[in-house]
């Protein structure tokens, strides 16, 4: 019996190989499908534009460069990498509110560190944006204490009012809506932060007013830069 089986296998070994191969491929395709359709983990795959290097020349303004020197001086010599987080904040201020690869490479050169050291930091912290954002970034708190005080309703109201989903930017480029974790202002829940400003005890009426104010301000002039650089010193 065993001998017969081996003989058959030998004779048909090519066919067996094919069958096994086809089966393997089928299993792979199928499991991929299963993962795609049902996989909880799949929505966690992060795509970010780290590959979009444009090789444009990037340079901070005079004032910003002066600040950079002052910030680096706060840390012991040789430890200039410590200035990375503050510098990335300034970089976002200087360049349209987000960090492009070129900007990050520039910051790396300012601190004399490898670009990868900047990327790994920029992708870790939630306040660094790797993609273009609106002029006003609305960060609505969605954590427990705010949520039990009506934060979820405020978030859906914002989505409705701006006609975008959380994470998106309005077509006019005025607002980006983000959901963030506890802003450390739970006593005045629900809370949101727009640029550097806190807005507390939110109601739908307040949201109407805040959005109207920001929209009209944007029409008059370029919206003021947030106070980050000014307040830094």
């Amino acid at each position: 019996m065993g001998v017969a089986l081996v003989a058959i296998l030998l004779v048909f070994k090519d066919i067996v190989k094919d069958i096994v191969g086809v089966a393997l491929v089928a299993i792979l395709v199928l499991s991929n499908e299963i993962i795609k359709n049902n996989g909880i983990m799949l929505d966690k795959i992060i795509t970010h534009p780290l590959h979009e290097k444009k090789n444009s020349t990037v340079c901070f303004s005079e004032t910003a460069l002066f600040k950079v020197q002052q910030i680096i001086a706060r840390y012991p010599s040789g430890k200039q990498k410590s200035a990375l987080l503050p510098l990335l904040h300034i970089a976002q201020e200087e360049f349209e509110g987000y960090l492009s690869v070129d900007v990050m490479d520039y910051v790396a050169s300012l601190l004399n560190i490898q670009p990868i050291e900047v990327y790994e930091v920029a992708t870790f912290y939630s306040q660094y944006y790797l993609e273009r954002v609106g002029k006003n970034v609305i960060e609505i708190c969605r954590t427990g204490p705010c949520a039990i005080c009506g934060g979820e309703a405020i978030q859906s109201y914002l989505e409705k009012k701006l006609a975008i989903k959380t994470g998106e930017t309005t077509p006019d480029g005025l607002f980006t809506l983000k959901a963030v974790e506890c802003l450390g202002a739970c006593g005045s829940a629900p809370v949101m932060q727009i640029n550097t400003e806190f807005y507390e005890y939110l109601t739908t009426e307040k949201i109407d007013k805040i959005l109207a104010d920001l929209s009209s301000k944007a029409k008059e002039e370029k919206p003021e830069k947030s106070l980050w650089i000014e307040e830094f010193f």
Partner: protein
Amino acid sequence: MDRRILLNNIAVPGIRTFEVFRSTGGYLSVMKALKEMTPDDVIEEVKKSGLRGRGGAGFPAGMKWSFLDKKSNKPRYLICNADESEPGTFKDRFLMEKIPHLLIEGMICSCYALGAETGYIYVRGEFKYIVGILNEAIREAYQNGLLGKNILGTSINLDIHVHSGAGAYICGEETALIESLEGKRGNPRIKPPFPAVVGLYGSPTVVNNVETLCNIGFIVNQGGSEFARYGVGKSTGTKLISACGNINNPGVYEIEFGLSVREFLYSEKYCGGIKNGKELKAVIAGGSSVPILPANLILKTAAGEERMLSYESLAEGGFVSGTMLGSGGFIVFDEDACIVRNTWNLTRFYHHESCGQCSPCREGTGWMENVLHRIENGLGKARDIDLLVSIAAKIEGNTICPLGDAAAWPVASAIRHFRHEFEEHVLHPESCKNSAIRQLDNVQIRRLENV
């Protein structure tokens, strides 16, 4: 029971400025410490005071200071932990915004005691306006000879710098904070070595919370034993409690340890009772990481004693019937609050904030979030509840930093005390008042079914 240490002068107009702060007796401690005391004297007084860290763990500050490696010839550092991101906690922001010089005063005395010539204040990135306030206070202190070279004509030098984070809860953990201050991702380090031996730039470092450091001025001025006369037992001094949730008067209150939870919750002087005349359902007494307690257990211990606001009283009963003081973030839930939804919400928070270094935390928080999401959305199965308990148990104690525990405890305690609500969600999902919020599309549902 309403003596104060930190906020005595909070209502004085202009207390944020150097002039006014000084006129209320501010910075006297610096003169006393530098001119009349040796660094060891200061440490001795802090030990005597029994002051415990206000950042969450409650570790005695004097003891932490005495661990600082004295033999090392490297520079020493003091870092003020102003990362305040524990949900429900907003007391450090209050101190820094209203009375920033109190922190600078405390830091100068502490740096003197520790022999540190550089101090950093690590402020969470969202508090940008606080950076401005602190920098102004520091500028005034330099101008008045309290910082810089040869402070007050002595040979002591000290610089204090403000450093801004960029949005990461984990950077509140002291070794993650140090990594972040070094310009890296906020990945906690394996301990030991502790920061007191190998900290910032490999040097001996002490990390203390804002509120902890704000107490040092009083201790130097009045002596450690005077400080220890405040409070009860081993909970000496006062504590800032930040109260939020479904109460009439949310805000920051300074209480003397030993105040009863009942008085804190219902008296007009503090929380002012539950909003809209509703009933109390539960309280998270020390920031989102500590176990949640139902109304009966937060007001009275299992042994029937009045529960007090103090490290010991809140911990009475262990995790079976007690909780922790934590950071003092007091979150109150009324009868309408959905415990399942809140537990899901907090678990999502921890999943989002996990730095991802250890698999029990990175994966465990994700699984708990998914399972809770499924239950909250009416697709839960009876076995899910025990599944949650077992995931939580597997995270707890098996991670590099305590964030893993902090994620496990809320889930374990919510199920311990409110199992019936979880079961109700599994059996009759439509009965929850929150069911209107649920709007799942088919893809989401399919995913949930396959968890």
